[in-house]
């Protein structure tokens, strides 16, 4: 411990710091400036960037002692006199902020970058300098597009004029209109200031810190745990082991197969074996090292093949289940007559595919704080689904549902990875009850990777048949997915892999067989595009191949086979609005497809693919009669409308979406609307942010609520004078009739409404219509509406190294109606960027069940330099049941981009990609085979 003096944001501090303490720790924990984020702890993500004497440094790898007498500038210092810095304004205006977790670091990097930029070498060079300058800062939400736009504009003004002119900032006050007007998130300012509190930013008084001891074996019996030495360590308050938390949980009612801490045996390397509550994180870590566990390793199952073999009851990973092996779930559905389809086809193709698992890579690591009081448990946690966590906590803690409050603070990205109830959440709740103190936990990036729940490693064989004139006759898929050690969403994932192949093309003969196995690896679950991303890849690759075989333009082939609007699929999905054609036409036009296809030189290629996705699962995860979503509105004397909703804004902009919808219905500005969301005490139940359901379902509930409030207003007015409700307009903060007999300001109306009554509360709800067939499995993939889309990708393949450089992504997505076009574009760009990662660089690699690449250096999320120009096109088809015609935009777009890239590789070098991520070595090997083949054929 030494004392250092440093100036942070102009204020002098004299602080006692540990000699080896990092600057990020001092800034966050000792000074309390939590705008500086920690995303990876090892200098790979840039979230912790601050300025030290004006120079950008990564505070997570900068020793605090080095900063003695230094001046540190953090994000909190940028806004002056209540006004944002111009760069911050640009971030807000351009929609460069989604989850906001990378934002402070990104802004600090951009700030230090700007003075070094030059336009002397032209605009392309200027853009490159910016992309390169930001390339040490990872963003998982935006695909960097809007961030780069913000920095380019700011830096251009800076470079051109040496100083920035006054910019008219687009804020919620200055923007007119509601639905369809592109606008920044309502909380964007808070995020860009570094003022938004994420789970790890919440500093509970008197809290203890929790750390875990994790298994070093894939599959082993726990023979003994000796934690006496650890317990004797000064500062250790409690050590929990598995037997204290015997109740099993899981997100699906049919897969309640996990305990918070391993009991009797461990099922993967990284599973929690013991949990320590101590005064500090450092003490908790030291205590974990003192815990002695005696394991007896047993046979580990690490691959799909291992897990298919029949094994003894004692060898099974889980003893429940009806199979003699480690298969978790089998499903098969068949429609039409597949042998007939094969016989009708002129050309058939059958291909096998393999996919590595991938991780969500959200920038904010999991964190939670739990505490108990007279009303029970409160947990503040980074979760996408407060409702299911609420249920799981009540179950495992064995307390009534009424004793559990789950609060979601600002959340740094989810993508499906924060949508299960997690062991760490249950453990801190338990430790808080045992110690009577708040307990805080934050996972390291390594632990985030071990927690996983990412996309399943999969393999599949798909067969399709087509007529000579390009009509699809049959599709048959045989799919196996590697679930890891626990169930998670796996049963749904299994089904989605199959059922979500029945669109966007018309198929009369369609079937699939799917199974999910348990293996001794971190569990897999839901990730953006849930369940169907890999099988979509297979089908779109096969279609591309069939088009090649019958010498038909792959776009034309797709056009010939699209389902229509207002139709049923073979598996009885009700298709309402359908923008497949418009989407494909748009990307063909923008990419100049017709001019370029077949005319590019070797190494250059373009490829196309399409996709579709559910707009919310029509069925709840846990069967009950609750509406899918309920939204409450409260209007009080001051004219403010408070929206309360259980829905989780995870960076996708759902709070803003709710505000816009209410604003549109009531004709009042967003400045009069406040959103309080995701607090299971204060807000009505919403099932959560998964299955791309929020805009459709919660949006509809909000619209319903706003319309109910409107009715209340009209009734109140009707009591005063004779009115025809049809003739009343709610626009621009006024309520008026065409004849102007009624012409009232919002506040005048509020006075009338609240007279002798006070605050008015109304409720709105959304209940999905009854859908689907009555066969087993009919419920999988049912949705009140579906999104559709298409992507054309362009690649440049180095024929000597096999390196694939994606140079352009043109995408179009039918989201029904863009409630907030800026947010929709952001979702699309982010989806395509994430798909790019799965296509070219991301994979989870294991060594005997131990994850190799559990950090942001070795798990390769594309940086700003690796991300091509992304051209987003919103297609609007106005869905009949979506709120103002809207449907999903958060997940579906990822489906077409990956196969489009692979098909572009085929177009470039004639190599069909059958494994993801695309492997340069495979490309070289197959090119050699091709060359040999063509030489032989020519010879």
């Amino acid at each position, binding site marked *: 411990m*030494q004392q250092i003096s440093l100036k942070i944001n102009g204020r002098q501090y004299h602080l006692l710091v*540990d*000699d*080896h303490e*990092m600057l990020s720790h001092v800034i966050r924990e000792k000074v309390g400036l939590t705008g500086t984020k920690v995303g990876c*702890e*090892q*200098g*790979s993500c*840039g979230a912790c*960037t601050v300025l030290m004497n004006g*120079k*950008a*440094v*990564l505070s997570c*790898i*900068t*020793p605090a*002692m*080095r900063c*003695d007498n230094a001046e540190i500038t953090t994000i909190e210092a940028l806004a002056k006199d209540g006004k944002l810095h111009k760069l911050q304004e640009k971030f807000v205006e351009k929609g460069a902020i989604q989850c906001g977790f990378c934002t402070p670091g990104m802004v600090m*990097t951009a700030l*230090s*970058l700007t003075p070094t930029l030059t336009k002397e070498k032209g605009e392309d060079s200027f853009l490159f300098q910016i992309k*390169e*300058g*930001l*390339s*040490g*800062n990872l963003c998982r939400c935006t695909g960097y597009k809007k961030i780069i736009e913000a920095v380019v504009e700011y830096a251009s003004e800076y470079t051109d004029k040496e100083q920035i002119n006054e910019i008219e900032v687009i804020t919620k006050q200055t923007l007119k209109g509601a639905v369809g007007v592109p606008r920044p998130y309502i909380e964007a300012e808070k995020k860009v200031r570094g003022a938004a509190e994420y789970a790890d930013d919440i500093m509970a008084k008197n809290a203890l810190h929790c750390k875990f001891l*994790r*298994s*070093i*074996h894939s599959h082993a019996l726990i023979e003994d745990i000796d934690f006496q030495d650890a317990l004797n*360590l*000064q500062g250790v308050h409690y050590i929990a082991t598995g037997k204290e938390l015997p109740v099993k949980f899981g997100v699906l009612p049919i897969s309640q197969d996990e305990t918070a801490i391993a009991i009797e045996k461990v099922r993967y*390397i990284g599973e929690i074996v013991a949990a320590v509550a101590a005064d500090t994180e*450092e003490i908790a870590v*030291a205590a974990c090292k003192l815990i002695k566990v005696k394991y007896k390793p047993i046979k580990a199952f690490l691959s799909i093949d291992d897990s298919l073999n029949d094994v003894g009851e004692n060898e099974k990973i889980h003893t429940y289940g009806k199979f003699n092996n480690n298969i978790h779930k089998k499903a098969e559905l068949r429609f039409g007559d597949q042998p007939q389809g094969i016989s009708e086809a002129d050309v058939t193709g059958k291909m096998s595919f393999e996919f590595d698992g991938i991780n969500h890579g959200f920038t904010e690591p999991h964190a939670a704080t739990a505490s108990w009081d007279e009303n029970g448990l409160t947990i503040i946690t980074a979760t996408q689904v407060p409702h299911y966590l609420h249920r799981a906590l009540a179950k495992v803690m064995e307390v009534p549902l009424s004793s559990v409050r789950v609060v979601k603070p600002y959340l740094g990205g989810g993508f499906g990875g924060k949508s299960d109830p997690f062991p760490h959440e249950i453990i801190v709740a338990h430790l808080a009850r045992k110690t009577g103190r708040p307990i805080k936990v934050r996972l*390291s990036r*390594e632990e985030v990777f071990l927690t996983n729940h990412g996309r399943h490693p999969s393999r599949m064989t798909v067969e399709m048949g087509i007529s000579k004139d390009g009509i699809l006759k049959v599709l048959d898929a045989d799919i196996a997915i590697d679930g890891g050690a626990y169930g998670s969403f796996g049963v749904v994932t299994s089904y989605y892999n199959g059922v979500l192949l029945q669109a966007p093309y018309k198929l009369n003969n369609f079937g699939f067989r799917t199974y999910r196995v348990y293996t001794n690896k971190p569990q897999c679950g839901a990730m953006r595009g849930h369940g169907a991303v890999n099988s979509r890849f297979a089908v779109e690759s096969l279609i591309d191949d069939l088009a090649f075989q019958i010498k038909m333009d792959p776009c034309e082939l797709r056009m010939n086979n699209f389902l229509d609007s207002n139709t049923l699929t073979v598996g009885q999905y009700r298709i309402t609005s359908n923008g497949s054609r418009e989407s494909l036409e748009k990307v063909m036009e923008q990419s100049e497809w017709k001019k370029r296809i077949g005319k590019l030189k070797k190494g250059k290629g373009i490829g196309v693919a399409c996709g579709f996705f559910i707009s919310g699962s029509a069925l709840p995860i846990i069967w009950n009669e609750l509406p899918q979503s309920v939204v409450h509105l409260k209007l009080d004397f001051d004219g403010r409308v408070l929206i309360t909703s259980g829905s989780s804004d995870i960076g996708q902009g759902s709070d803003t979406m709710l505000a816009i919808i209410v604003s549109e219905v009531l004709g009042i500005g967003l400045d009069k609307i406040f959103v309080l969301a995701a607090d299971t005490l204060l807000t009505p139940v919403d099932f959560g942010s998964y299955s791309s359901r929020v805009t459709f379902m919660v949006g509809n509930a909000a619209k319903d609520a706003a319309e109910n409030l409107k009715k209340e207003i009209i009734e109140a007015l009707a009591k005063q004078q004779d009115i025809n409700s049809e003739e009343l307009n709610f626009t621009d903060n006024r309520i008026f009739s065409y004849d102007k007999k009624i012409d009232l300001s919002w506040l005048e109306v509020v006075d009338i409404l609240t007279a002798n009554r006070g605050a008015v509360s109304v409720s709105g709800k959304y209940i999905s219509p009854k859908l689907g067939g009555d066969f087993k499995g009919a419920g999988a993939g049912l949705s009140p509406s579906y999104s559709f889309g298409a992507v054309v990708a362009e690649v440049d393949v180095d024929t*000597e*190294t096999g390196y694939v450089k994606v140079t352009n992504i043109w995408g179009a997505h039918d989201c029904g109606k863009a409630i907030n076009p800026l947010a929709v574009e952001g979702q699309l760009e982010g989806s395509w960027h994430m798909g790019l990662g799965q296509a070219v*660089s991301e994979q989870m690699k294991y*060594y*005997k069940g*131990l994850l*190799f*690449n*559990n950090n942001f*250096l*070795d798990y*390769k999320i*594309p*940086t700003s*330099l*690796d991300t091509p120009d992304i051209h987003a096109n919103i297609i609007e088809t106005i869905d009949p049941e979506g709120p103002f015609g809207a449907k999903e935009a958060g997940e579906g777009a990822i489906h077409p981009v990956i196969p489009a890239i692979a098909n572009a590789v085929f177009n470039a070098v004639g190599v069909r990609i059958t494994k993801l991520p695309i492997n*340069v*070595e495979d490309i*070289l090997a197959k090119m050699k085979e091709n060359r040999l083949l063509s030489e032989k054929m020519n010879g």
Partner: protein
Amino acid sequence: MILAKTYIKATSVGHALALANESGGSFRYLAGGTDVMVNKFQGNDEADLLIDISDIESLKDISSTDSHLIIGASACLDDLKKNQIIALHFSILLEAANAVASPTIRKTATIGGNLLCENRCTFYNQSAWWREAAGHCLKCNGPTCLASGGNKNCFSKFVSDTAVVLISLNATIEVIDSEGISIIPLENIYTGDGVNPRQLSKTAIIRSIQIPLLEDSISVFKKLRKRETLDFTSLSTAVTLRKNGKLRIALGGVHAKPVIVDGSIGDDLNALISQSVSKTRIIDNDTYSKSYRKEMITVFLKRSFEVLKLS
């Protein structure tokens, strides 16, 4: 309890050496510290005493004599481009420096630190917990090399991008320790032993890097990595052709030390390539496979030769 850790900022090279000599336990010099701090975070570096030499101004100077460009070892990678001589004569060094890590890291990381960057391996650059779960490898005091499946040698990769370029440029380094000052060819400090990859005395500090100015040369640098930033090398190649017809090839990422092949204009280029390949010691401890990295040596060198108009 938790061990006392110490951090001291050295005010001069002499001060740093004195601190190092006096330190009873383990110590580590810290220049930029961007690798050391990550290694500490992962438990691979357990030095109790950190001697921060980043404030010693004399170690940051970039100057030249009649014969040499002299780069202070603590010069930041990002600052190299500000020097006219480097920009004019050694743009290849800038290429290599810009290929290191990410732009923000390069503002802190130093050239000397990059030369001394610890060797890397997928089994080594992991947390203490991970390495325990894997069973410790040779480089973390285990009995055998895990990456090679039981070899008694450590194959951790030499990964300094600037070193391969500097070696191709015949750079020397000025080393100072309690014995005095010595000037040695850069390549001489690398042992080829993955566990102990450098043979400098324990207290030695690299004071500067000296690049010969008189020999007019052209050079080509290439680096193999998955992403266009951030990643450590899977293969780095530097080829320098001097006016006198001498050719020097240096490879990184394919051995525990840099691989060096000397030749001349007129040599059989394929022979130079196969000589380079045969000197490597590549195993599967990288994001790319052994065979691919080997294959890419040929591709990179051929492309370099083309740029140098040798082929």
